[in-house]
């Protein structure tokens, strides 16, 4: 049995299914096998962050105490993009102009796609560093799969766009840009958005003008890395109905993008308490408590049955995809022992012998 063998593992899926936890457990399991592993987490819950020694936001992986060669970091989207800009800027002046621009500051922090892009940019950097046998990447809770998969391409399209080129060719005077007869659409934008916004946009594009080639090249390299045979995707879901539908849509988007999905991890599956405890509960607990216990068992059974329906739906929609089930463990992942427990269920991710 092996834990995902690929060099780069990307955990994808809807928000709220335990993706970050699964990524951490997967990385820990591989580190336990003696590999040097980096895990990049996004917004880990405080307890998990503490378990991984990630109390402070760090731009680089930190070694996790008591976990062999497990190195963990949390993604800082802004910092990752800042570093990228810094490395591409022709000189300090250009760098400072770009980094201090309001458009850039907002773009790097809030605009959809920048977190996704910086996640894969970080994956690329860590891979290029050559320091790790394996890298496990958690991904942002995207609105849909395309937000994540498209991020590099979208950024390229953006910098390649006609508007971007028009803007970058301007000297920086917003009013001059807006007044140019050849740029009516900018005139419209200036009229609607106000001169202040337009000025910032023009300033941003002139600041990054010299970096466009570098950014485009980086986006292309990142895109290529996602398609590299060394990269595999693990789809994480819960058995919750909406999560299941999202997972199926996610798998379809991956297939369309021709990205290899290597396993499905279904997290927090309810297992029925099997068997009929006939009369013995009454003798042990008295009639009232025994009846409550029976209620618990019945409800758990209903839940397990509903989860079973979800699994059947997943299997029908994703035939042949190796699937691992992680039971509802009932505990928050607040230490390495609990992560190990979860990791034990992931042992077979990436193995050909996984139950179909």
């Amino acid at each position, binding site marked *: 049995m092996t834990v995902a063998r690929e060099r780069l593992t990307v955990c994808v899926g*809807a*928000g*709220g*299914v335990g993706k970050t936890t699964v990524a951490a457990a997967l990385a820990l399991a591989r580190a336990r096998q003696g590999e040097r592993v980096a895990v990049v987490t996004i917004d880990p*819950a*405080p307890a998990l962050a503490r378990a991984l020694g990630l109390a402070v936001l760090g731009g680089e992986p930190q070694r996790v105490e008591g976990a062999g060669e497990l190195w963990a970091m949390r993604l800082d989207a802004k910092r990752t993009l800042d570093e990228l800009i810094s490395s591409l800027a022709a000189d300090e002046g250009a760098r400072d102009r770009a980094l201090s621009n*309001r*458009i850039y500051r*907002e*773009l790097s922090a*809030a*605009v*959809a796609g920048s977190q996704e892009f910086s996640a894969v940019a970080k994956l690329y950097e860590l891979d290029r560093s050559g320091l790790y046998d394996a890298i496990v990447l958690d991904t942002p809770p995207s609105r*849909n799969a395309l937000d994540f998969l498209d991020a590099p391409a979208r950024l390229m*399209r*953006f910098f390649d*766009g*006609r*508007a*971007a080129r*028009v*803007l970058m060719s301007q000297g920086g005077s917003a009013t001059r840009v807006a007044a140019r007869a050849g740029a009516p*659409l900018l005139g*419209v*934008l*200036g*009229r*609607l*958005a*106000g*001169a*202040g*916004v337009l000025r910032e*946009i023009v300033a941003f594009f002139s600041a990054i003008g010299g970096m466009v080639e570098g950014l485009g090249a980086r986006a292309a390299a990142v895109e290529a890395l996602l398609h590299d045979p060394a990269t595999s995707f693990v789809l994480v879901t*819960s058995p*919750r109905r*909406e*999560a299941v539908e999202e997972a199926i849509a996610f798998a379809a988007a991956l297939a369309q993008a021709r990205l290899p999905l290597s396993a499905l991890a279904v997290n927090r599956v309810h297992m029925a*308490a*099997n*068997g009929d*405890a006939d009369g*013995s*509960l009454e003798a*042990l*607990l008295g009639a009232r*408590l025994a009846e*409550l*216990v029976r*209620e*618990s*068992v019945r*409800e*758990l059974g*209903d*839940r397990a*049955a*509903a*989860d079973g329906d979800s699994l059947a739906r997943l299997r029908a929609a994703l035939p042949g995809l190796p699937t691992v089930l992680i039971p509802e463990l009932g505990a*928050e992942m607040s230490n390495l022992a609990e992560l190990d427990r979860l990791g034990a269920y992931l042992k077979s991710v990436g193995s050909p012998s996984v139950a179909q």
Partner: protein
Amino acid sequence: MATIPLEAKTTGRVLDRRLVFLLGKGGVGRSTLAAALGLLGARSGRRTAVVEVSGRGDVPRLFGATGRVGVELELTDGVWTLDVDPRVALEEYLVDQLPLRTLAEVVGSSNAFGYVAAATPGLRELLTMGKVWELAQPQRRSPGALPYDLVIVDAPATGHGLALLAAPRTFADAAGKGPIARQGAIIAATLEDRAQTAVLAVATAEPAAVDEALELRSTLHGRLGAVLINALGPERYTSEDRAALEQALARSDLDTAARAALQAAAAEAEAAQRRRSEIGRFDAQTLELPDIGPAPVSRAGLEFLADRLSAIA
């Protein structure tokens, strides 16, 4: 069990506002509660819109319907839904603002304009909020469209939800002059007015969801109306019961079935206690909503949640 949120007590009921935002982490059942609140609005005779900004169509699905992004759809008597598409909102806005329809279409469909619009920070959010605001205006922009008395917004994960709420003000401040700045200021004033807008958080009694709701609460500086704690599991066991279960589990002569049953009960009791301690992290401004079971959400389930929500609405 349920406590009335302080803000609702002091500044009127939630349904008396024109705009109600439900913000929370993914997977906590926000869309379900938005739909239930929509039913409650319709029960009170308000023409109600339950608005999504996700492109996912979760709300129509709850009613067995299929929505189309950007198209208003009646789900049941008095309850409508719309999945706001910023691009459609932009086109509507341009048609409304520019003198010639053809010019608006040319500009709206131009890739270059689209890229610049996409690059303008917060514009997407502003357009979305502009549409939400427009739905609740006595005079609708779209000819013949009727206004809504109540607009409930199922807002995405907390971070993006906050960006939505902040966009009009940010824009009004950044843009300085021009129609967008003016409109941003008007929308922002509506959002900031407690008599017109309520912001509710949705969480489950799980650490990550509670963390996010608490963060939302501190970011909103007292602007948060209530925290809806959704999908609470059963709490059947007293602490004496738990002790009795533990004691029984310690016996060595249990048959397998009895042991499994006791373990299931003990795990449930432990989970209930953990949830209780998570809820304890909030002060009194919470409304607890029970788990309505693993089956797909039915109309009866939505009506049941609507009953429960009437405590704050």
